[in-house]
């Protein structure tokens, strides 16, 4: 097992390198950061000065070699805009994103699996229809709607929650709730579908012949068999959250990585983009490794 994880880690490291190289060159195809950092009426000398200062005037290949050299010494460069080490900026933001993603995903996973399984068990019934329609509306409604309506309702009209920002646990309720909705809707549907197939399997009959109660039949016998696609989709949704939740961060003023990433991309703050992708990619790779381990834990036939 340990050996396997080690092997995976090395392979992931290779992907990380590929990713970083791609990002490095592709991002440099998208325009000149000097023009964006400096005011619109900045002179050419100022732009030149900016480029020289940040090494942007050198050939891209040379920049790349320098970057690699720095990274090997764990120096991820300065943010072009913030005059701070890019990695600091990113880690600061990630310290907000990570708990947000984890809390949301934890809630989503529990709620979606329970309701999805219940829907599958009552397939075609009123509970199934109810859960499906509600979750689907959640999954397809524009999230800024939900966010703004939530603010109007809970912060302005009812005054129960603060409009936005961070600080107290109360501040987290709306962002988590809004982020919750889409992955919840998606995963409910995937759980439902996968459970439907699994519930038709003969071992369910065995369990019933054994006199096992419905709840363990659903949540113990069948669910585990239905989990393969479910955890894959959970992984996909978690990856989206680990990449930052732009809308929610924007509306609720949540200082996470999503907004930072978008701003840095739009402003061509290359070092921050690189550092942000490095951090999110590491998180996503770790998650994917965990998911693959989960596959083999869940299904002994996959273990090799």
């Amino acid at each position, binding site marked *: 097992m340990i050996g396997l994880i080690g092997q995976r880690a090395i392979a992931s490291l290779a992907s990380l390198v590929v990713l970083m190289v791609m990002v490095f060159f592709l991002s440099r195809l998208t325009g000149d950061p000097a023009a964006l950092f400096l005011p619109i009426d900045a002179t050419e000398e100022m732009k030149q000065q900016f480029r020289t*200062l940040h090494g942007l005037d050198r050939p891209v290949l040379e920049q790349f070699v320098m970057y690699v050299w720095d990274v090997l010494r764990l120096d991820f460069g300065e943010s072009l805009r913030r005059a701070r080490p890019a990695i600091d900026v990113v880690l600061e933001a990630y310290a907000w994103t990570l708990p947000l993603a984890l809390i949301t995903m934890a809630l989503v996973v529990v709620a979606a699996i329970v309701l999805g399984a219940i829907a599958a068990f009552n397939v075609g019934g009123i509970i199934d229809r109810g859960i499906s329609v509600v979750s689907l509306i959640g999954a397809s409604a524009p999230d800024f709607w939900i966010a703004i309506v939530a603010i109007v309702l809970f*912060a302005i009209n009812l005054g129960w929650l603060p409009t936005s920002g961070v600080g107290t646990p109360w501040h987290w309720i709306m962002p988590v709730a809004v982020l919750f909705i889409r992955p919840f809707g998606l995963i409910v549907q995937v759980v439902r579908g996968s459970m439907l197939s699994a519930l038709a399997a003969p071992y369910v009959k065995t369990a019933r012949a054994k006199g096992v109660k419905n709840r363990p039949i659903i949540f113990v016998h069948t669910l585990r068999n239905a989990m393969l696609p479910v955890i894959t989709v959970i992984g996909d949704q978690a990856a989206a959250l680990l990449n930052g939740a732009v809308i929610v961060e924007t509306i609720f003023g949540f200082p996470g990585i999503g907004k930072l990433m978008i701003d840095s991309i739009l402003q061509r703050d290359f070092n921050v983009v690189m550092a942000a992708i490095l951090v999110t990619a590491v998180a996503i790779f770790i998650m994917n490794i965990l998911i693959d381990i989960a596959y083999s834990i869940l299904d002994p036939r996959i273990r090799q």
Partner: protein
Amino acid sequence: QDNTDITVVLSEELDLVDPCMATRSNIGRVIMQNVSETLTELDVRGDEGLMPRLAESWEDLGDGVWRFHLRPNVTFSDGSAFDAADVQHTFDRVFSEDVTCESARYFADTELSFEVVDDLTIDITSEPAQPILPLLMTLVTIVPSETPMEFVREPIGTGPYVLSEWQAGQHIQLDRRDDYWGEQPEVSSARYVFRSEAAVRAAMVETGEADIAPQITELEATNPATDFSYPNSETVYLRIDSADAPTDDIRVRQALNHAIDREAFIGTLLSEGTELAVTIVPPTTLGWNGGLEPPAYDPDLARQLLEKAAADGVDVNLPIEIIARTGNFPNVTEVAEALTQMLSEVGFNASLRMVEVAEHEQYYSKPYPESEGTRLILAQHDNSRGDPVFSMFFKYHSEGTQSGISDPHVDDLIERATAATGDERAALWSELFAYIHEEVVADVLLFHMVGHSRVSERLDFRPTIATNSQLQLSEIGFK
């Protein structure tokens, strides 16, 4: 009033707080005159014009030399005294190769040299002579001579407030100083928070989570008790490239101007109070020419002009692409769509392309990319500094980076006006405005915009034209 702490909710996070970047509006709004002060200050509430701040007075010694007499007994927030060396260091820093200070651009073609006469007197020589040097001093925030040649994250200034806390992404806290040289402001501390969503900013003032939201949209500004509109010194226009066909023909440019129903935008897509523009600078600027008329909306005339041009062999069917930037100002997309439609209606082969900021920049500044036909750049220009010099060279001189024309007479007027002083300066600018507007028809000038802000009812504060780029806490009182 017991609670004199306020919270200001801004639309954009700060990535820097360095004083030499204070001319960038999001930074200036927080530190300009609050943390760091300038030698001179432009009066935007009354009509006093240029006022003393850290310089008590100044005089033109001739030959491009200006003498500034500095205010005594001023200390920086780190305790050190303010003197002429600090002024000199400030400028050394602005022009340093090691920091890319924004304020340097205002001195692009002038060479400054300094001579410290005594602790509180400094002579500044500019080459060529800079008649508006004292005005330019409103743009340079003074830092102590210990400030390193790199961006600082804890700005030290002479202002009434110190930056006491900066949680990136969350808030910035300014606290009042006890040893400020001037009158103690009423606000004891200000916390700046950042929310990009206008609706949320407005809501925060409504729920009491914030006291001032300097920029909200017109749509949010629905409560007369708290919401104010103010001219925000931004001017919207369509930049024409008169090197391209078919806009190299003046009749085509005129047709563009007459094709647009400017009035129709006001009170609909743009706020009530928006004014039609005849110059690229707002009316509060020196030399603004009140005699100019906005081009009348006359689609028939526009069609006739096009026909005439076509008759002379101008290919008026060449594509005209309007390039606009998403998020440039509220409703920019709709405005651009409406403009496109109006141009199409009179027979232009117009199309619209909305782009993000980096791409917009490509089209906006020279060298302009090639195109079949031509491009009209929808852009917004901000000049709240009181003098057209900050605009005219860039926008109209044949060497200006965003200029769409190349006209020797315009170049000449700009150069002369820049060097002139007093009434002559105003007259030259006026002449330039009229010439550009009527003879050259250099661009499609559209609107002077208004901004909206929401101010809590417990505050006594009215936003001004400068609110866009600075928000002096000392101007805020409590009811």
